[in-house]
C-alpha cells in the first residue's frame, strides 16, 4: 500500500505539508506502508488530496484531508479497511472534474513524484529525446511539430514550428532556447503547476526544441513568486545532468546543451519576449522594437527562440505519439489541448485541460460545476489583463483562437475567471486598468499615459462622478492606445474596457446616468437597508457597526441611518437572517 500526498503550492497552502508530516510520524509505527508525494492534479477545490494505491495499483482518493484525519487513514490502510474512510472519499460528482478532461501537457501532474527522475523515466520519460537524437534530423523535428499544429500557449498563439524554423535558419552558431515561465497574468497558474508537478517534461520539451534550432544553451525565466517551482526545477536539472540528459554529448549523439534558471524579479511586461530578453540581460524589462525578431537577434543579440512552459510540455508527447494524433484533436485552426486555470465564483475551481473545440459552457458548467452559492452566471474573463469578459449569451463559443478573438477576448495563457451577478463589470475593468497602469514599463506615451487616463475615468465612474460623454471618450482612448502602443501589453490593455463596454454597456450607463451600481458592489453608489420583515432584532448588526449607525430595540426590526453609514458592509456580513440588503 502506498499513501501519496498532493504537494503543489496550492495544496501546501491548503495544509498538505502538515498532512504529509503527520503521516511521516505515523508511518514509523506501521510496517508495509510507503509514503510519497506528488505534484498537483489540478483539483484545487479539494485540497489537500491524499491518494491511496493498493498493491494492485488501484486508487482510492481522499479529499479535504486534515492532519487530524491521518491517524484514522493510516489505521484503515494498515488494516485494509478502506471502507471506513467513506466520509473522506471523493464524491462521484467531483470525479467528473477529471474524467471530462484530456491531459497532454498535464499528463503526469499529480501522478508522479516530481523530484524523482526515475518516476518520470518509468512513464516513457526522455524517450522522445532519445528518439529525436538518434533517429531524426532537426528538420524532421520541426516538420513533426508543424504537422501537430502546436501553437504558442502563452497567449498569442503563433505557430511553434514557424518560430523554431526561423531560429534554425538564422545565421550564427551561438543560439539560445528560452522558456518564458514568468506567468504574470493574475488568475493563471498553469505553468507553475507544470513545473512543480512535472519539471522533467519541461526539460525534455526544451531539449527537443534546442536540438531543432541548434541551441547550445537553455534558460528558464521563472517568476520569483514561485519558489517551489524553482526548487523542483533546480533538482530536476541536476538529476538530468547526472543521467546524461543535459550537458556534453547527450546520449552519445554529439549534441550538447546546458540549462539554467534565471529568477525574474516581478514585472508583468517581462512576459513580452523582447522585454524578457532585456531582463535576462540584467536590464529594466522594457520591450525592444520588432523587427529584428528574437529568432534573428535575441538574447545577447544572438538568434533565440522563446516559448512558454505549456508549449514545451506538449512537445515530448507529440514526438512520441506523432504530430497527427495531436492534430486530430481540436478545431480547424486550433489543434490539440489547452490548459485553463478555472477560478472565481465557480464550484469546482482548478486546472482543466481540454481539447480545443469544447464550448465555454461545457468547461464552466460540466467540468467546473457552475456557479457556487446558487447565484447566477454573469461573465467569464479570459486572457487576464490582455483579455476580455465574455457574457452568458456567448457561452456556446468554442475554445479556438479565432472564435475567442471574435468575442473581443483572447485565448490568452489560460486564465478563466468566472463572475456572478455580484461582480460589477465597470469595477472589473477598473481592476485590470489599475494593473496595467502599474505594470506599464513607461517606454511609450500611449501606454504610459493612456492607461492612466483610462484608469482615472473608470475610477470617476465607479465613485459616482461619471459624466455624460465618458463612455465615448473611453472608447476613443481605447482605440488610440491599441494603435499607438509599442508592445502587446499596451496594445491589449484596453480589451477589458472594450469588452465590458460592448457587453455590459448598460452597467456603465447606470453608473453614469442613474448613479447606481446594478451589481451592488461600488460602495459610493449603494446603500444598505434593513428589510424589517426579515429582521428579528438580534442586535448583532448594531453591535458590529463601527460608526453606530444602526438603531433598534431588542427583538424589534432595526434601521440604518444612511447619513452615518460608511458602507463597510459589516452589518450585511454579520446578519444571520439575510435581512440587510444592498440597494
Amino acid at each position: 500500500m502506498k499513501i501519496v500526498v498532493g504537494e503543489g503550492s496550492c495544496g501546501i497552502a491548503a495544509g498538505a505539508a502538515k498532512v504529509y508530516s503527520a503521516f511521516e510520524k505515523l508511518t514509523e509505527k506501521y510496517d508495509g506502508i510507503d509514503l510519497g508525494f506528488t505534484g498537483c492534479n489540478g483539483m484545487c477545490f479539494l485540497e489537500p488530496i491524499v491518494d491511496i494505491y493498493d498493491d494492485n495499483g488501484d486508487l482510492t482518493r481522499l479529499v479535504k484531508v486534515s492532519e487530524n484525519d491521518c491517524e484514522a487513514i493510516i489505521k484503515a490502510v494498515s488494516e485494509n479497511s478502506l471502507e471506513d474512510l467513506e466520509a473522506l472519499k471523493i464524491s462521484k460528482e467531483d470525479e467528473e472534474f477529471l474524467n471530462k478532461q484530456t491531459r497532454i501537457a498535464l499528463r503526469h501532474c499529480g501522478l508522479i513524484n516530481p523530484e524523482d527522475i526515475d518516476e518520470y523515466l518509468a512513464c516513457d520519460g526522455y524517450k522522445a529525446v532519445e528518439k529525436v537524437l538518434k533517429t531524426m534530423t532537426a528538420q524532421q523535428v520541426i516538420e513533426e511539430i508543424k504537422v501537430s499544429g502546436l501553437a504558442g500557449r502563452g497567449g498569442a498563439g503563433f505557430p511553434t514550428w514557424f518560430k523554431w524554423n526561423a531560429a534554425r535558419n538564422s545565421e550564427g552558431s551561438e543560439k539560445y532556447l528560452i522558456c518564458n515561465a514568468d506567468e504574470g497574468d493574475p488568475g493563471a497558474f498553469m505553468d507553475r503547476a507544470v513545473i512543480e508537478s512535472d519539471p522533467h517534461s519541461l526539460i525534455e520539451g526544451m531539449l527537443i526544441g534546442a536540438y531543432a534550432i541548434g541551441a547550445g544553451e537553455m534558460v528558464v525565466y521563472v517568476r520569483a513568486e514561485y519558489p517551489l517551482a524553482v526548487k523542483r526545477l533546480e533538482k530536476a536539472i541536476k538529476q538530468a545532468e547526472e543521467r546524461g540528459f543535459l550537458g556534453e554529448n547527450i546520449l552519445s549523439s554529439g549534441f550538447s546543451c546546458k540549462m539554467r534558471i534565471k529568477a525574474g524579479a516581478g514585472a508583468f511586461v517581462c512576459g513580452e519576449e523582447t522585454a524578457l530578453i532585456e531582463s535576462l540581460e540584467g536590464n529594466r524589462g522594457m520591450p525592444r522594437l520588432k523587427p529584428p525578431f528574437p529568432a534573428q537577434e535575441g538574447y545577447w543579440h544572438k538568434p533565440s527562440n522563446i516559448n512558454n512552459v505549456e508549449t514545451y510540455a506538449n512537445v515530448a508527447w507529440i514526438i512520441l505519439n506523432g504530430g497527427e494524433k495531436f492534430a486530430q484533436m481540436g478545431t480547424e485552426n486550433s489543434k490539440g489541448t489547452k490548459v485553463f486555470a478555472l477560478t472565481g465564483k465557480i464550484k469546482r475551481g482548478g486546472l482543466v485541460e481540454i481539447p480545443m473545440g469544447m464550448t465555454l459552457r461545457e468547461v464552466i458548467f460540466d467540468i467546473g460545476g457552475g456557479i457556487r452559492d446558487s447565484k447566477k452566471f454573469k461573465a467569464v474573463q479570459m486572457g487576464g489583463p490582455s483579455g476580455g469578459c465574455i457574457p452568458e449569451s456567448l457561452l456556446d463559443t468554442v475554445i479556438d483562437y479565432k472564435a475567442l478573438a471574435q468575442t473581443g477576448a483572447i485565448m490568452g495563457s489560460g486564465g478563466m475567471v468566472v463572475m456572478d451577478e455580484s461582480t460589477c463589470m465597470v469595477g472589473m475593468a477598473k481592476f485590470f486598468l489599475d494593473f496595467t497602469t502599474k505594470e506599464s514599463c513607461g517606454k511609450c506615451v500611449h501606454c504610459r499615459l493612456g492607461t492612466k487616463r483610462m484608469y482615472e475615468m473608470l475610477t470617476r465612474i465607479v465613485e459616482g462622478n461619471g459624466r455624460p460623454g465618458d463612455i465615448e471618450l473611453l472608447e476613443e482612448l481605447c482605440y488610440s492606445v491599441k494603435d499607438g502602443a509599442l508592445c502587446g501589453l499596451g496594445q491589449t490593455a484596453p480589451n477589458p474596457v472594450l469588452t465590458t463596454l460592448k457587453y455590459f454597456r448598460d452597467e456603465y450607463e447606470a453608473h453614469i446616468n442613474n448613479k447606481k451600481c446594478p451589481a451592488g458592489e461600488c460602495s459610493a453608489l449603494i446603500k444598505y437597508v434593513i428589510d424589517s420583515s426579515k429582521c428579528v432584532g438580534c442586535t448583532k448588526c448594531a453591535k458590529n457597526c463601527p460608526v453606530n449607525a444602526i438603531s433598534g430595540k431588542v427583538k424589534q426590526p432595526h434601521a440604518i441611518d444612511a447619513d452615518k453609514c460608511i458602507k463597510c458592509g459589516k452589518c450585511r456580513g454579520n446578519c444571520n437572517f439575510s435581512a440587510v440588503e444592498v440597494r
Partner: protein
Amino acid sequence: MAENIDLTLLDKTLEDYASVKGSLITVLQHAQDIYGYLPEEIIKHISDKMSIPVAKIMGVATFYTQFRLKPVGKYLIMLCKGTACHVNNSDLIEKTINETLGISDGETTEDGLFSLKNVACLGCCSLSPVMMINGETYGSLTPDKVIGILNTLRQNALEEGNEQ
C-alpha cells in the same frame, strides 16, 4: 543605520557574479536575501564592484516589484490582488488590514512588526482571497479571520520578545 551594514556578507555573491555579464538582477536578489532590502551603501558597493553606474542599478531596482529600498517589518504580509481574489472581495481584506494595523500598501507599522505589500497573484486562486505572511499562506480569508491571524502573530512576537 549605515554603520551596521556588513559589506563582506556580499563578497561571495560578487565573487561568483561580478564578472558574469547580465547578472545584475541576480546580485540584487542575493543582496536583498542577505540584508532584507537594498540599502544605499550596498547599491554603491555593487556599483563599484561591478562597474555599473548607480543610476542604472537604481533604474533596475525600482523597475521590479520584488526589490525594496527600505527595511520591512518582522512580518511581511503579501496580500494577493489577483483577479480571482478581486472577485472574491480582496478589497475588503485590504481594508481590514489597513484599519487593524493602520498601514497601507508599502508601509510598515511603527513598531516594526508588520509590513503590507499588495502583490499581483500568488497563484492559489482556489483559496481566494489569499495572503502570504513570511512564506505561510492563509486562504479563504474573512475580515474576522484576518484580525485573528494578525493578533496571533502580534502575540507571538510579544512572547518571543519577553523570552529574550
